[in-house]
């Protein structure tokens, strides 16, 4: 078996007494689109800078295709970094920007120009090489930054929240485009973001980070549907957290005693709760459904406080006892049952759509 594209081997990074990244152990496969997802200050950018060579791990090693990168500066590493603000060179034309890495390598001017034009075709900006960077739109600059990074033919492309400066529409468009470019060139991408939407839509795998620690690594669907920790459950997507005491564990089923009475969900075998412990039961807004009169399992009596209508979805905010802001999302499919503001509404959820997890810090956002 060949070595992974990037191997983070028990990487710890400290700044003085502060530990920014703690004991990270991840293998990133060749050609994988891998995202680090976490709130600002979780250490993901620090980790990326360590991979690109701008700082060295305090403990542990980073290997790229099996080669230890210790002591190898950013100018020599086979990585290319795309900065959050892109950092295009404003005094150079578009093609000079793209070909800068080739200029550094002593490639002749005609050849540089030819390669730049090829890359401009790849990013769907043919014939724009002689423009100044300032003449481009936000999305075009984005693509030029990608082309500039690809020009040096890196083995790994590192992206530090490159979409955060764009407006929503463009951001969504660029997600698709980034993913398409990645698949076209077949390169390993390491993507840093605090936006779970970006991470979920583009990535093969996601590592969720909090306070310098990797909380969970896995494909997007796994992280979303089977969160390993309370932090992951509350950070990735919306989630309702019911707090209670574990009464009974029967096979995969967990019964908690909560303020709304007994609620039943599933055990996560990777991080199981124990009988008698306090725990959370996480239920996604889209898993809450209006309850029929005769349905009593996982039934919660609530009042509709607010209806945020988004077009394709109704996002209801419900109050139920001490849980004052439960979220429930139902598709706008024409068959709307109840839920005007101020009305009372009984809701329920399927046990297999709920995850019981030990107590832990929740994401505050």
């Amino acid at each position: 078996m060949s070595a992974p594209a990037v191997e983070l081997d028990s990487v710890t990074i400290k700044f003085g007494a502060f530990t920014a990244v703690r004991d990270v152990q991840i293998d990133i496969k060749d050609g994988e689109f891998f995202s680090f997802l976490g709130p600002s200050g979780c250490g993901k950018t620090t980790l990326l800078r360590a991979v690109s060579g701008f700082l060295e791990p305090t403990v542990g090693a980073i290997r790229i295709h099996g080669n230890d990168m210790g002591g190898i500066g950013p100018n020599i590493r086979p990585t290319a970094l795309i900065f959050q603000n892109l950092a295009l060179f404003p005094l150079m034309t578009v093609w000079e920007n793209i070909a800068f890495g080739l200029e550094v390598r002593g490639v002749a001017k005609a050849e540089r120009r030819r390669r730049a034009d090829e890359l401009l075709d790849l990013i769907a900006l043919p014939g724009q090489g002689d423009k100044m960077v300032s003449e481009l739109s936000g999305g075009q600059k984005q693509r030029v930054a990608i082309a500039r990074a690809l020009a040096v033919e890196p083995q790994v492309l590192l992206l530090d929240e490159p979409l955060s400066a764009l407006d929503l529409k463009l951001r969504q468009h660029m997600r698709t485009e980034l993913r398409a470019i990645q698949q076209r060139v077949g390169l390993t991408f390491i993507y840093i973001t605090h936006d779970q939407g970006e991470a979920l839509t583009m990535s093969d795998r996601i590592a969720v980070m909090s306070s310098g620690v990797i909380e969970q690594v896995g494909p997007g669907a796994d992280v979303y549907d089977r969160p390993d920790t309370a932090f992951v459950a509350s950070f990735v997507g919306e989630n309702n957290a019911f707090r209670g005491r574990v009464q009974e564990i029967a096979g995969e089923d967990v019964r908690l005693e909560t303020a709304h009475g007994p609620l039943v969900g599933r055990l996560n075998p990777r991080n199981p709760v124990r009988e008698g412990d306090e725990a959370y039961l996480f239920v996604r807004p889209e898993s809450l459904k209006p309850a029929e009169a005769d349905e009593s399992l996982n039934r919660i009596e609530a009042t509709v406080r607010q209806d945020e209508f988004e077009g394709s979805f109704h996002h209801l905010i419900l109050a139920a006892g001490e849980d004052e802001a439960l979220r429930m999302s139902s598709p706008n499919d024409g068959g709307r049952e109840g839920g005007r503001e101020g009305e009372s509404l009984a809701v329920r959820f399927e046990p297999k759509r709920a995850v019981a997890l030990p107590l832990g810090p929740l994401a505050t956002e």
Partner: protein
Amino acid sequence: MALTGWLKSFLGKNGLLVGLYILIAVAVWIVLLIVLPQLFMLDFSFRYNLPPGQVGGPQDVYTLSNYKYLVFGSPGNQAAYNWIDLSVFGQTILAAIFVTLIDLALCYPIAYYLAHVAKGATGRLLVLSLIIPYWVNEILRAFAFRIIFGASGVINNALIYIGVIDQPIDFIREDVALYTGLSYAYILLMIFPIYNAVESLDRNQVEAARDMGASWLRIHWRIVIPYAKPGIASGCTMVFMLTAGALAAPQILGGPSSLWFTQLIVQWFNTGGNWPRGSAYAIALLIACVAFVLFMMRIFKIRVGEIGR
């Protein structure tokens, strides 16, 4: 009319008192302190040097004789041109260019370091240690340089002590003291404009260039220097102009054979008692300096407006 409209809105925006003060202060500054003196100087330079009684009389007419003197010498001159004065003129310009280049080489790294490397207390300490020595006045500094560069000064003594030389070097005669003094005199005027320009450079651009494999030399050549160009131009212009017009340092630190063009000007005004000729020499220096600066800005593709930033 546009002017009265502008005046009304200007006074309305700033209030009558403040508005009037600014208008008058700017007018006095520009007209009385800048334009008028130079106009009189210009006027003087085109007149004959007449005894007081004949000023305003029939012989007081305009003439190019003062400028001709700078170029061709006195009418009885054997040589075709006034080589003595012209060579001093040329040497002054060349020396000013030389000093400017030395300052640029010295100050660019310092300015970059201050703007992007030194942080917090270190940076403030550095700036202070650059500024505070300028509390020492120019004359005192010049004579102090004369002492340390003297035949039995600290530098010669130290060099002899460590055995590099066995005879003292005459730094004054070799103009080492002069160039050191001139280079040091205007260092702040080079550092601060470059600092200003470099400071706003996005650090990510430097890192991006580095990430793409650029050496430090190339990063500065392709990224930092082009960005700092207006600041560099501004610093070079000021250092060049002030060095070409320096008087105290050349007079005190200059070797016996070195003559600065400003010294010639002063000689015409003072010893020679010929104000019109002194004016002509001064105007010639001014025009040559401005023309040279504009020419260099053209070569390096810098617009005058950029320097003001």
